[in-house]
């Protein structure tokens, strides 16, 4: 399940012209609206910002809205929720990468498309990217299963999954069994048919 938010609706509310999500001031206005949407997103769900095709998001807008909120999510201010960006153009993604690099922030952001494809923008170590791909392929993952797939000790596998969870790139539930407390990690959903 996902809470989808059409960025054209947001654009109309703050006076965005067509597909141009520009300027720090507009980004600030967007930040407050997106934050309200995040608050009404259920725990365990992602807020998916659905961008119109051929859009352009400049670095200032990105920094003031999504990156700002992304940092707060990564700090745990919004519980078991995440922010996914759907439909970004290559130019918009370049601008996101530029601001993350300029700020020196380690904040990987999950970008997705209606085709089911996804990508991480921002810095993420290769072993974590590999782990994320595996979680996506299997839909859910425990540390013991990841360990078996990659030939890793359970502790190492657990650390990788936990780090992905800290970035809010995966969500987590727990179960209690005779083995004790176990975490189960899931890739985020962004379409109703997922």
């Amino acid at each position, binding site marked *: 399940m996902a809470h989808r938010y059409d960025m054209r609706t947001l654009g109309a509310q703050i006076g965005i012209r067509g597909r141009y999500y520009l300027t720090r001031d507009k980004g600030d206005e967007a930040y407050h609206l997106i934050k309200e949407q995040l608050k009404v997103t259920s725990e365990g769900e992602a807020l998916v910002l659905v961008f119109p095709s051929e859009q352009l998001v400049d670095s200032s807008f990105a920094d003031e809205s999504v990156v700002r909120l992304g940092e707060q999510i990564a700090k745990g201010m919004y519980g078991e929720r995440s922010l996914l960006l759907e439909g970004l153009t*290559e130019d918009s993604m370049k601008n996101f990468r530029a*601001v993350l690099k300029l700020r020196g922030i380690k904040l990987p952001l999950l970008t997705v498309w209606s085709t089911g494809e996804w990508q991480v923008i921002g810095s993420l170590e290769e072993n974590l990217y590999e782990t994320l791909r595996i979680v996506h392929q299997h839909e859910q993952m425990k540390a013991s299963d990841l360990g078996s797939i990659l030939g890793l000790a359970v502790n190492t596998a657990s650390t990788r999954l936990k780090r992905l969870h800290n970035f809010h790139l995966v969500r987590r539930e727990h179960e209690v069994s005779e083995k004790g407390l176990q975490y189960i990690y899931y890739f985020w959903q962004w379409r109703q048919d997922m």
Partner: protein
Amino acid sequence: MVLMKNINEQIYLYLGRMDFFEITKAWLKPLFALDEEWRRNPHSINLLELTVVSGYEEMSAVIERAREIFTPYLSQDELAGLLRVISELCQNIYQHSGDTNGCVMIQKYQPNHNEAFICLSVGDSGCGIRANLIRRYSWLGSDPIHFVRAAMDGSFTSRSHGRGGLGLRTVRNITAAHKGYVTVRSETAAVTDWGKAVQNFSNLAYMTGTQVSVKLSARSSP
């Protein structure tokens, strides 16, 4: 009223073509105006005339127009860089200068078959960089050169909640990546940054506001 006289004919025609006299007609008058003017192509592939940017609407219109003009002549990377530069510089005009009549102009030059350049200029006659930053960074002193350098550094911002300050640094990075340069002038100081080298100018003749000039290299026309 400012009067201009003895303007070189070619410069006069160029200024007319760039809408300079139209933009400044409220306070500037050329003496002995020429009847001749250069033919104007509304679908020019080479230039964006002097355009006032007083807010988001005008800025996004400039970006859209720049996209239309330069898409056939720039690679995707070059175009993306140009649009980012336009966005960052135009925002500075109306968000920081206090001037609602700041302007932008863009021109493509092709000196020969193998090379082409995009030259972009923005300018305002607002408060200038020092007035913008001095409230938060009075320790920088009184010389405008320190404030111009600080503005280009990326870690100084006039915004109260501390986010911001990346605009000119973004422009610096883009011009360096595209083998160009950026010059920022405010009051009596200017800084030109080529990426690997920086040149500072102090004690220049006073000019109010802030003016920025950018040059980017582009792929040559097919």
